[in-house]
């Protein structure tokens, strides 16, 4: 594929975001930073989904005066990934909320946000 097209650039950035997010998850000690790493990771995934819907020169899949019902097939971008990304974003929100509340409880238990403090269950 062409890495310098709009889609190519978006997909590449998406994957780079995923790697950055993983880097954060795997190396940061602070729970909040890890969660931030996770949201970056998630955004990377979402960007990839949206980028896959992109088609050069096309517009949003909404039928109006510009995009009529008859020529819509040739004028709009793929609507499916756009529908999917909505779900993915919402899931990300839910997960982040739950993670944050976990962090809050953990902070209350030990007054620390360092991940390596929380190793009571192991082996």
């Amino acid at each position, binding site marked *: 594929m062409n890495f310098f097209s709009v889609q190519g650039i978006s997909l590449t950035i998406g994957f780079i975001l995923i790697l950055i997010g993983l880097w954060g998850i795997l190396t940061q000690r602070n729970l909040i930073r890890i969660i931030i790493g996770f949201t970056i990771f998630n955004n990377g995934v979402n960007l990839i989904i949206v980028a896959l819907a992109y088609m050069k020169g096309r517009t949003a899949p909404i039928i109006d005066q510009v995009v009529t019902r008859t020529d819509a097939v040739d004028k709009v971008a793929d*609507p499916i990934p756009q529908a999917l990304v*909505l779900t993915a974003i919402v*899931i990300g929100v839910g997960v982040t909320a739950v993670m944050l509340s976990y962090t809050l409880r953990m902070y209350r238990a030990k007054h620390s946000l360092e991940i390596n403090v929380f190793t009571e269950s192991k082996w």
Partner: protein
Amino acid sequence: MYKKLFVLLLLAVLGWSFFTLLQTHQERQSLNPLSKHYVEKGPDEVGAPNLVTAIVVTYRGFDTLGEVTILFVSAAIVGLFLKTENRRRKYKIRSTSEILHAAQRLLFPVMILFGIYIFMNGHLTPGGGFQGGAVIATAMILVLLTNPESPISHRAFNLLESVSGFSYIIIGVLGVLLAGGFLDNHILPLGKFGNLFSAGAIPLIYSFVGLKVGSELSSIILNLNDVQKDDK
């Protein structure tokens, strides 16, 4: 240090695998058969000019139900976690600026209205239940930013959430009983293409989704706000 190098190495391999995936990727020049069907037949079958909405609310409405459920369960978990006995406790806060107060009074009704507008018109214009709900929740954040002690009733949000959620399920089941299947929007007439009251049950569903998302996000925010009372 070694650990970081190791992680770097791992991510490099992972990146390489992503790169090979990208290399094989072909950019599409035309819609695939599935999306072509949605674009061509969607306006007739579902009656919504916003094709994304047609997919989100009807074709893949079952996903959306799951999506709503995820927000619902997240809100419930946050409620479960952050249950606090000190809900009524007052604590001293620094008063917020006059600008914020004034802006809040001015913006709050507009934001709520805007949120409602977005989800009511989800089938016509960009936007929908989730976006509208998020705008409503943002209005709540504004209120709390101005005054963290605002007497906002959790109960009201809970009831709103339950009513809208339950109604959503009822509409879904009505689809089984009256139309072609769960969440079928044909339980109401499709109406005139492009009108507010058209596209069958979509505006109704999206309104419930909007209310539900708005109240769920708001209650997450309210719960998180209440936590401060424990830590003071």
